[in-house]
């Protein structure tokens, strides 16, 4: 365990010293600031319209109906962007976790020390997981708090939603670490993004299948979601971000919007995603044990 923590510490220090964290914080501030500015303008426009229409609007009670839905959707789509950025970050920061050190020759001097190969993989995973999870948690908090401050809107179950998003981030981190023990850095990056895209494709196919009442498409979508449950996790997270009247609105459209889900995430999906993340991590340990350096 000592060596795992030592390698994790190395990864964290590397992220700090290579200014990865600094760049992330600056870009995150820009993204959150830009998005929240848009929401501020939306809020001002909605208030103005309410006043012009002579409505007795009380911001303390929050909004209802379509204006309320637009605020709720701004939070939901903001979180979707957070999830997308978090996924991007999980893959890009971790893509060379092991392969990068092999390719540049650093790994030889590490593995010749009394450190197990499994410890190196687990340490790299732990270090990058801490960075990725902290980043997405911070980004989520900044966005949701910002939306609340501007509009007074708070999603019904933000912690559950963020928890599911973080599980997706951990799954992507584990998959990227596995790829990093098997492939070159570039191949790994491409491979994980293709898998991520497969999950999203599954969501789209399911949506079309439900809309067009075509069970085959729904089955294909379920298959894709099983292979890559990141999209299923997001749809589950989005459910917890919607108030009841927005859920009803989305149900009326029979799931025409592929970016939001209208049902709570199934326990099976969560368990599968967690088991999947652990399994690919163990696979990464096994794969690296046999790899010639």
């Amino acid at each position, binding site marked *: 365990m000592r060596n795992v923590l030592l390698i994790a510490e190395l990864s964290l220090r590397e992220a700090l010293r290579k200014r990865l964290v600094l760049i992330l914080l600056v870009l995150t501030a820009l993204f959150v600031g830009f998005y929240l500015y848009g929401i501020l303008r939306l809020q001002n426009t909605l208030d103005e319209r309410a006043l012009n229409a002579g409505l007795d609007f009380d911001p303390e009670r929050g909004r209802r109906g379509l204006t309320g839905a637009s605020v709720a959707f701004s939070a939901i789509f903001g979180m979707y962007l957070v999830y997308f950025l978090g996924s991007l970050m999980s893959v890009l920061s971790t893509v060379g976790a092991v392969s990068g050190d092999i390719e*540049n*020759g650093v790994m*030889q*001097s*590490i593995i010749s*020390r*009394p450190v197990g190969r499994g410890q190196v993989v687990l340490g790299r995973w732990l270090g990058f997981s801490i960075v990725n999870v902290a980043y997405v948690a911070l980004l989520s908090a900044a966005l949701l708090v910002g939306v609340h401050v501007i509009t007074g809107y708070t999603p019904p179950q933000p912690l559950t939603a963020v928890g599911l998003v973080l599980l997706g981030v951990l799954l992507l981190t584990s998959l990227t670490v596995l790829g990093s023990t098997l492939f070159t850095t570039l191949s790994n990056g491409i491979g994980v993004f293709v898998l991520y895209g497969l999950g999203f494709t599954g969501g789209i196919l399911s949506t079309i299948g439900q809309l067009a009442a075509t069970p085959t498409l729904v089955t294909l979508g379920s298959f894709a979601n099983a292979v890559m449950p990141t999209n299923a996790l997001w749809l589950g997270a989005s459910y917890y971000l919607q108030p009841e009247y927005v859920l009803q609105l989305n149900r009326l459209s029979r799931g025409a919007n592929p970016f939001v889900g209208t049902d709570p995430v199934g326990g099976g999906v969560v368990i599968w995603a967690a088991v999947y993340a652990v399994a690919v991590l163990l696979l990464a340990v096994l794969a690296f044990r046999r790899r*010639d350096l």
Partner: protein
Amino acid sequence: MTTSAAVPAISTQQLRKVYKGRAVVQGLTLNVGPGEVFGFLGPNGAGKSTTVKMLLGLVLPTSGEVRVLGGSPQDPEVRRQLGFLPEQFRFQTWMTAAEFLNFHGRLAGVKAAELQARIPQVLEQVGLGGRGGETLNGYSKGMLQRAGLAQAILARPRLVFLDEPTSALDPIGRVEVREIISGLKREGVAVFLNSHLLSEVEQVCDHVAFVKAGEVLRSGSMAQLLGGEVPVEVRVDRVTPDLLSGLGRLGEVQLLPDAFGQPGVQVRLARQDDLPLIAQTVGAQGLKLYALTPHRPDLEGLFLELIDTSGEQKTAGVGA
């Protein structure tokens, strides 16, 4: 794992590594004694680096047996007693030299208090005294190699692998590395040296193995390899039958072509101590002796003799 001092530092039996159907190392049998400085020589593609990697547990052998310090290189307890300077000394250049050594020291299980004293010591030893606070990305290639050497000897190993340890160093640096190797030898540390600088190998190694195509062509102590017959070139004013007869009693004689109008012979002496007898024999014949030149064999000559000098191997040099 055995810790007895009598246990060989390295012992391999029929070690073999196959990559995609091609044997890179085949049937390699080596023995390196404890505290021995061992030179591992061969042309490009001879399998030297792959062998070093198998000895360090970086590459898994296809077949055969490898024992390092009496145990398996896969055993962390064995690796705790090893030091390694890779040929391509690439390290985390975002670290300072002191941080880099601290990281490797901790990986090797050296206690923090000991590291505090040890790091300045090894930096001084490799000529980087007072430079530990600088980041490695500001280091020159030679300084990086020195930092790598410091990393290799940091945890007081019992066996050190040095893969081309002087490739980026200036002549002063090379002398310093030779001194470090000699110092390790005095401390009883075994050194496995992979170098294409044969003159350096000749100066520091006790034993040498020549490999080609993954097989050991010849191995032995320096005395065994270089201590055989000494060819001596003798230049005189004229060669007479009596001279040939007299010299023939000292060793095998061969006529040489004239050089600068002086005839000459080559005498292969069995013992270098017999050199004065050649001068005495020439003098006893009343002949004039112009030159008496012993051509002692060296590793380079032996290398060229052993390695097939045809085709690309002749031109490829000896680096791995």
